[in-house]
């Protein structure tokens, strides 16, 4: 079953009088349960495509579908509603809220989705166990290593049972061991829960985890 699809999407950024075509007409589909890598050199459009798939941005042309719904022209709040609970994100930087503990960071999307306190507690504890952070539950990001922070970010992305998790260079700021640990966890969770993962990377050690590889070059699928 299709989770997301793009049809002939283009994305043009205009800075001053200079136009840059980040995506030049891409069409592809991501099926449920995939563990897919978007690969390509810097500037190939990986991040831009992830942002369109994640309803963070809107295409200049073409259409983006998430769970069958055309999200290309949704307004700001409609896109926020679409992201909430449906799409999880893991960013290159360890994107945790610095004033919240690991537990509270993971709980945040559940709060936004209005889960009951019991549901939240059970889900957060389950995820903390899954990413091996149970003993770090009440630590704030500045009290955690980079690897621990990124594992917490993965747990947060998965918290509301999303249809898809989009990860942009999730291991770029980690050493090899921590990078592998994060990828192992993502692989395991993909296999155990069936949640779809799409991650952008140009690291060959990460690409090997993917069951499907989509290569981008100069804004098109190579």
């Amino acid at each position: 079953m299709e989770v997301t699809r793009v049809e002939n999407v283009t994305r043009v950024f205009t800075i001053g009088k200079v136009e840059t075509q980040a995506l030049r007409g891409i069409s592809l589909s991501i099926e449920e349960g995939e563990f897919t890598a978007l690969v390509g050199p810097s500037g190939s459009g990986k991040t831009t495509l992830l942002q369109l798939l994640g309803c963070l941005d809107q295409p200049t042309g073409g259409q983006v579908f998430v769970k069958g719904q055309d999200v290309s022209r949704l307004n700001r709040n409609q896109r926020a509603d679409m992201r909430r609970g449906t799409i999880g994100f893991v960013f290159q930087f360890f994107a945790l809220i610095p004033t919240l503990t690991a537990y509270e960071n993971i709980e945040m999307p559940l709060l936004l989705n209005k889960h009951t306190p019991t549901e939240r507690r059970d889900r957060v504890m389950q995820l903390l166990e899954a990413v091996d952070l149970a003993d770090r539950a009440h630590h704030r990001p500045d009290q955690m290593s980079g690897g621990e922070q990124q594992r917490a970010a993965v747990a947060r992305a998965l918290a509301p049972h999303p249809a898809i998790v989009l990860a942009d260079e999730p291991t770029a700021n980690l050493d090899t061991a921590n990078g592998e640990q994060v990828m192992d966890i993502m692989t395991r969770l993909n296999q155990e829960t069936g949640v779809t993962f799409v991650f952008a990377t140009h690291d060959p050690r990460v690409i090997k985890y993917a069951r499907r590889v989509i290569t981008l070059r100069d804004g098109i699928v190579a």
Partner: protein
Amino acid sequence: MIQLYKMAWRDLGRNRRRTFFSMLALAFGVALLVFMDSFIAGEMRDALQLAIKLQSGHLQVRTATYNEDKTSLKWEDLIENPDAVAARIAARPEVQVATPRLYATGIVVAGDTSAGVRVVGIDPDSAASAPFSEGMTSGSYLTADDRGGLLMGRTLADKLKLSSGDKVNLLVNTSNGDVDQQPFVIRGLFSTGTPGYDQNTIFLPLSKAQAIARADNRASIILILLKDQDQTDALAAALQEPAYQIKTYNQMNPLLNEFEQYANAMMYVFYLIVLGITATVIVNTLVMSVFERTREIGILSAMGMRGGRIMAMFFAESSLLAVGGITMGVALGSLISAFVQRYGIFIGDFGVTGIFIGERIYTYLTLKDIITLAIMAFVITLLSAIYPAMVAARLEPVEALHGGK
């Protein structure tokens, strides 16, 4: 909601010094306003009580034709057999004291100097005359049968360089339009603590004042003090009869009422100015906070937080700043007000014609004033979060996510 406030609390805690100084700015503003409010309220309250105590009483009975502005001494304008009228009124249970007074205009002459005065004939033994007997600064108080002595305000005596025991000539307008002149000895000097009153008032025993003004057994007014000020209007209605006009203290002190309304209106303008200044401090704090947390706003937005909720986060922060600042401000302002309520502030002769202002002003702070001010400060502080909150809510998630890089 709890999570929102938890985040707001921790966000404020990131830069404790900045948060503290923002709260302090608000606290100083609120403290200043609490003090100003209590100062004006105290001044108005004291002025009214002084006016009641020294001049108007709670109620006055006058003949229907008596004109206060002209200090009329025509017999038809005066109350005949005033002691009997006063005794009848004093018999009412709500009345503390009722006493006749005769007003006349005159000039006091001492050597080469002279001054226009208001001559007031009083019953020295009446409880209504207590502020004068209690305010004696030198010499002795009047007796009802004193035929050659007067009491003079200390401020007037200082101006004329006179003291107790000195002799003066008093020229008084009489009921038939003539001027009578008699020598008097200054028995004593009094101070009511109200220089504006003390510098133009001379007291004579009522019978002597009646004699010199040729008023026979008549008085200008019956001055009434009540046990309970709130009974004023009820008693005024009960005393109504065609031959008399009954004046309440509000009617007799119109300038005070107007001044109070004006002062209250000015206080609201002052509120807005001071709170407006403190609001700019809060705006600055929150705008800096938005810029420092751009990427976090992007993360929350990526999780699906709507613009409205992002705005709510900043409103939560400003409301916490408001609660902290207002609490500190009310505490500080109340402390200062309590001190001035006890010890007063010496202002000397303020010299506002028509309003009794004492040498010292004592603040008067009410819970209602504090609550009004606290609500106003809270609302203005919340409003100050609108701009930063909108800036945060309008950030595009993609740009915000890159904003902190």
